[in-house]
């Protein structure tokens, strides 16, 4: 079974890649590791006329420390190479945990950081073959005005199911986005949009080229819950980071992933533990507030009522672990 017809362009340089992307417009799909793009091509969700490979681009393969102590990582770095890298997984424990949580060893040996950040959103309907999907009407991602996850919805509710974004948001990372003739920096916290079809702020012909993580304290945690450890997409994930000693914290960010169309930064629960410290009472109170911040919860595996409960459990676990660090 061959892939659907398309042409394949292996760009020699970043400039050439961006030029090709501008010229081909919406007909093109950027491909690096291939684990998500080819997967979606097999499901006929992606039908690009041109696949532009950025896998070997030297500009996107560096991991370097900047003058201000930040670490800049090229988007084409493989997930497997970052886990043990002294400047990546070695420096940021939550980032390391999130990298290790991605799929299987095989996938991590191919998939890239940029690919994980730009992972296509998924739901129980779109994560199946086109023959399977034929049994039901299409959806916003294919050819109909309908969302199978939340029937009354006016937009796509597929989930952002990638593991590294919650960790990178908690660590305060910034993405470098480039298109031909333009370059901009966007905090990863502002990168995702609450729409499963158009789920990021990436414009036409624009790609993520680098991820910059600022120097932060070691009090950080990432937890992912899956049906089978070591392969499945997440039922829910949490990343959190704080400054300070013991129960007294001076700065905290809590992020939930894999529950809705974009990672969710939890403001009110963070405010509670910031004011009261990481006491048992405050953690309980913070977890109680999680439900209110989630909005409509979509599903890939597990029912939404289960996923709401998981969100509460994840936040409790993350805060308890932070207290012990």
């Amino acid at each position, binding site marked *: 079974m*061959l892939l659907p017809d*398309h042409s*394949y362009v292996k760009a020699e340089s970043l400039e050439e890649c961006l030029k090709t992307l501008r010229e081909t417009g919406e007909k093109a799909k950027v491909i690096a590791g291939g684990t998500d793009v*080819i997967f979606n091509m097999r499901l006929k969700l992606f039908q690009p006329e041109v696949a532009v490979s950025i896998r070997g681009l030297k500009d996107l393969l560096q991991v370097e420390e900047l003058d201000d102590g930040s670490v800049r990582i090229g988007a084409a770095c493989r997930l497997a190479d970052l886990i043990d890298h002294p400047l990546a997984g070695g420096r940021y424990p939550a980032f390391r945990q999130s990298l290790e949580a991605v799929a299987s*060893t095989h996938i991590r*040996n191919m998939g890239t950081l940029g690919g994980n950040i730009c992972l296509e959103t998924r739901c129980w309907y779109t994560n199946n073959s086109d023959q399977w999907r034929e049994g039901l009407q299409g959806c916003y991602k294919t050819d109909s005005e309908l969302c199978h996850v939340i029937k009354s919805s006016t937009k796509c509710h597929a989930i952002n199911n990638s593991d590294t974004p919650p960790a990178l948001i908690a660590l305060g990372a910034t993405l470098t986005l480039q298109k031909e003739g333009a370059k901009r920096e966007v905090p990863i916290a502002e990168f995702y949009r609450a729409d499963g079809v158009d789920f990021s702020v990436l414009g036409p012909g624009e790609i993520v080229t680098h991820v910059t993580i600022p120097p932060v304290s070691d009090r950080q945690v990432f937890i992912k819950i899956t049906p089978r450890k070591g*392969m499945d997409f997440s039922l829910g994930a949490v990343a959190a980071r704080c400054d300070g000693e013991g129960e007294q914290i001076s700065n905290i960010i809590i992020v939930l992933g894999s529950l809705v169309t974009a990672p969710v930064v939890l403001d009110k629960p963070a405010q509670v533990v910031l004011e009261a410290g990481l006491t048992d009472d405050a953690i309980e109170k913070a977890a109680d507030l999680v439900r209110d911040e989630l909005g409509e919860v979509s599903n890939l595996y597990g029912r939404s009522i289960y996923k709401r409960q998981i969100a509460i459990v994840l936040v409790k676990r993350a805060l308890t672990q932070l207290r012990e660090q």
Partner: protein
Amino acid sequence: MAKHLVTLTVNGDTYDLVVSDNQTLLDVIRDEVNLKGTKRGCTTGSCGVCCINNAKGEAVLSCLTHALEWDGEEITTIEGLEADGELDAMQKAFIEYGAVQCGFCTPGVIMSAKAIINAHPEPTKEQINAGLAGVNCRCTGHIKVKEAIRNDHRIRELGRGTRD
């Protein structure tokens, strides 16, 4: 569809191949190089039966990557393990521990197992579990496979494994 000339080294032999844009590495291994040991399973990255080793000896999935991406690279497939008519220690271990049932997934499982040994010559239980997470045997299961992998180094050194 455009065709391109690609040089690919498979199991130490270099091939000049004419490859089209929409062929995956798996298509080329099976249909152009004509090595049928690497199997076509789910083709979506869930089952791992198409697993091969790259030049670094890491496990990668040949069904999820364009063949054109591998121009000039070296790969090892299941056929490359046997040397001078003798099976590799890992293959012997799989036979000794009965880590085979229908055998369809076995090439992918053995190449995944080789990747574990390449990274960790005497792997821990956790390292074996992590390395096998991407392969899915539907009949014999993973218990005997793990036993075989644990004994690979003993077969290599002593010529036989032990039961523990």
